[in-house]
Each structure stands twice: as structure tokens, then as C-alpha cells.
């Protein structure tokens, strides 16, 4: 535990990267997931198929392979993020960080898409039929009846997805971002006799983060619940 306490500033810095990765790719994958689900449930069969194919392929690929592609393979075919080089305070946003955000976003978008879709599917058909029957136009059916219910139903699965994303940011450790898991690996190697303390310390901070996200999700769910 001593090493963990001595190097606590480094650990906090590393968790800073974890949180930044989570926030950046979280926002982007919510946007990406919304676009995907719009294609997926929309009336255009071609877009529907395209989105379904993308989701199936990416969901069944390990996140590590997505990272692997963008880190090592993509530069070979002229896709690289070398131009990203921003430094804010003690944080460096290099191509490694940008690559991690891209990989996490592309991967998580598919799960967000499925979560939102399950929300749409949770709305009973009778709701829309009743809304049409009382004469609401398409916009009214959507705005007043279908989307509010779909949105509420998709809060828990989206929250699960975001928690998974928070944990998945640790894959960036393999590809050159010094976030929590990478910091833990370095400390584990430097202080061989304190592995348990280091592991438990970093793990506890992770548990705190996960609980935080899940508390926020629960409070949103409570606030938006109707009855």
C-alpha cells in the first residue's frame, strides 16, 4: 500500500486520463449511437441493412482488435491521427489519445445503438395506434407518445453501456495511453512486493467511478420516471 500512497499523484493523473477518455468517447458514442439507431429503425431498407451490418460486425470484434486496427493497420493505408498534439495543463492529448477515442467511439456507438433500439422496441404498438386514432399527426405521435417512452426505457441499457465504456477505457493502456490500468501495470512492475496493495487501491478507485456513474444513471431514471 506504501507505493500506492507515495505515488498517489501519478495515480490521480492516470485516472484523469481515464475520465477524459470516458467523457470524450462517451459523448461521441452517444451521438454516433443516435445516428446509427436512426438509420436502424428508419424506413429506408438500405440504411437499415447497412447499420445492422456495421453493428453486427463491430459488436462481434474484440475492442482490442479495433484499437489494433487504428493504431497499427490504419497508418499503413494512410489514415493516421498524427496531427493531434494538444497539451492542456498536465495532460497531453497526442495521437495515442485520439486513436483511443476513435476506437472507443466506433465500438461503443454500436452498443449505444442497440440500447436505444431496445428502448424503441419497448414501446407497445398500441400506444402509437392509439395516438394515431385520436388524430395526432406524425410529429405529435413521435413527440408526445413514442419518443418519451422510448427514451425512458432506454436509460438503464444506455447506462450499462456507458459503465462498460468506462471499464473499456482501460484497453487504451495496451496502446500507449497512460491511464489507470497502465499506471497500475507500471507500479506492479516497480514494486513487486506490494502488488496486492496496488491492485486493490486502483481497483477501489475504479469501483468508486463505476458507482458514481451508476448513481447518476439511477437518479436520472428516478427523475424521468412517470409514476
Amino acid at each position, binding site marked *: 500500500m506504501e507505493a500506492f500512497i507515495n505515488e498517489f499523484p501519478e495515480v490521480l493523473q492516470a485516472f484523469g486520463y481515464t475520465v477524459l477518455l470516458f467523457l470524450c468517447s462517451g459523448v461521441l458514442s452517444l451521438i454516433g449511437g443516435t445516428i446509427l439507431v436512426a438509420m436502424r*429503425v428508419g*424506413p*429506408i*431498407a*438500405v*440504411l437499415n441493412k*447497412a447499420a445492422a451490418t456495421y453493428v453486427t*460486425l463491430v459488436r*462481434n*470484434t*474484440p*475492442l*482490442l*482488435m479495433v484499437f*489494433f*486496427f487504428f493504431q*497499427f*493497420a490504419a497508418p*499503413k*493505408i*494512410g489514415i493516421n491521427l498524427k496531427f493531434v498534439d494538444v497539451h492542456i495543463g498536465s495532460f497531453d492529448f497526442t495521437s495515442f489519445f485520439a486513436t483511443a477515442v476513435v476506437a472507443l467511439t466506433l465500438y461503443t456507438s454500436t452498443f449505444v445503438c442497440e440500447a436505444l433500439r431496445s428502448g*424503441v422496441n419497448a*414501446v*407497445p*404498438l398500441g*400506444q*402509437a395506434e392509439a395516438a*394515431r386514432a385520436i388524430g395526432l399527426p*406524425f410529429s405529435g405521435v413521435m413527440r408526445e407518445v*413514442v419518443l418519451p417512452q422510448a427514451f425512458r426505457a432506454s436509460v*438503464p*441499457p444506455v*447506462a*450499462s453501456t456507458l*459503465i*462498460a465504456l468506462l*471499464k473499456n477505457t*482501460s*484497453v487504451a*493502456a*495496451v496502446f500507449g495511453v497512460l491511464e*489507470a*490500468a497502465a499506471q*497500475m*501495470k507500471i507500479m*506492479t*512492475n516497480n514494486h513487486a512486493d506490494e*502488488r*496486492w496493495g496496488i*491492485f486493490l487501491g*486502483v*481497483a477501489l478507485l*475504479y*469501483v468508486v467511478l*463505476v*458507482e458514481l456513474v*451508476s448513481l447518476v444513471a*439511477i437518479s436520472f431514471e*428516478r427523475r424521468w*420516471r412517470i409514476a
Partner: protein
Amino acid sequence: MAAGVLFDAPGPKTVARHRIYTIISLVVIVAALAFAVKRLADAGQFAYALWEPFVTPQYLTALLEAWLDTIIMAVLSVLGAVVFGVVFGISKLSDHRPVRWVSWLVVEFFRAVPVIMLMIFCFYAVFGDMPIARGAFWSVVLALTLYNGAVLAEVFRAGVNAVPRGQAEAAYAIGMRKAQVMNIVLLPQAVKIMIPAIISQCVVALKDTSLILIVFGIGLTKIAKQLPLSFNNIVPTTIVVAACYIVTNLVLTWLANYVQRKFVGEKKVLQVSMVADVGEAKTTL
């Protein structure tokens, strides 16, 4: 999709408009694909030399062996996870408060800690004395057993809770004891609806076996890491390795759906949310 929740059946005008959208999106999709293929071709990634190892028996055998390794790791860890899940899932339903608390703590801990950290820890602290490859193998199995076990514990608990309450009440009423109620009445009914969830968890386990790359490449990640060193063919290797994972996972998903249809019917797939309280209240009621 005639008259879903979202749309009415389209009229003639809408059909015409949709046809235009279809054509536009087809053009965009084809253009994007063509661009990707052109990028690959321009970079010379279709050269036979780069793909040669995947038709050379020697390397093909290595690939298949690595594939098998990955599958074995996933299978072992899922087997371990089922045991872990049954033990902790049932003890979360225990009548004794301390047992419930301890198992709650264990399950929540392993559900919240990233698998990659578990793997690093297992590799250095638990299997540190083993030869590297074997240590890596067992780190994957142990780490995934703990993580997936924690997830499955929740699945088991939700599964047992999903059995109608009258079943347990009736079993108690005819004089069964606690263990009998669980073993004879609740578990057999719960297992049936849990099988698809367990198979879906296999997909997660299979994908997560790749995370061991942070300490040592083993299974398919070994191929991804080593093959490009001798052939300089990282793009084809990435594509082939990813395809191996995808094919395996698609087979598993198909299996899960088949089992779901066969044993559970049209009922909803058992889903366990990461945000416990509120979501669960709905599934159990």
C-alpha cells in the same frame, strides 16, 4: 415493416420519396466502400505476398492452433464462471445477512474492475512463477472466470427471481425444505431461461481473451502480434484475425438465439442491467 410503432404504412408519395432516399444512400454507401477498397489497393494491401501466409499450410496451422487456444481459454473461463456464478448467485439469495453481504461485495467488486487490470494482476501476482505463456493462459482463464462469474451471478439471481413466486410458495406448502425448493423447483426452471444469457456471456468472454495482449500475446493475439513481424502485413493480419473472432461470435450468437427459441420461446431474453436497483425492480415484478 408495415405500420410499426414508428411509422404508418407508407402511401404512394412516401414510397416515391423513400425510393429517392434509397438511391442516394446506396450511392453513398457504395462510394464509401469503393473509397476503402481504393485506399487498400493504393497502399498495395492486396498484394499476394501479404496474404500468402494465410494460404500457406504451415501458417494456417499456426492460425488454427491459436484460434483453438482462444476458444479453449474462453470455454474454460465460462465453465469456471458458471460455477462461480451459481455459488455467488445463490448466496446472494441467502437468508443469512452476512452471506448476502459478502457475496454482494465480491460480485460488485469483480463487476466493476476492468478485466485488463484483473489480467495484469493475475499475470504478475498469481501466476508470476509460471513460464510466461502458461502464466498468460491461466491469467486469462482466472481473470475471465472472476469477471464473467460475477456477471453470471447476477444472471442466476435474476433467473431465480424470475420464476413466479407461487412456485416457491407451493413447494414450501407441500413441505419441501429450503435446499429442496431451490434444487428441485426453482433452479431447473431458472436454468432454462438462463442458458441464452450464458451463451451470450461466452461472446463477451471470447472477445475479452484478447486483452491479455497487454502483458503477452497468446491465442489469436499472438498471431496478430507476431505474423506482421516476418511478413510486414499488418493490415491483412488484422482483418483475418478480426474475422476469426467475428465468425466464432456469430456462431455463438446464432446458437444463443436457437436455444432461446427452442427452450424459452418468444419471452424476452433475460437481461441484467449494470445499474441495479431500479431496473431490476421491473424485471422481477
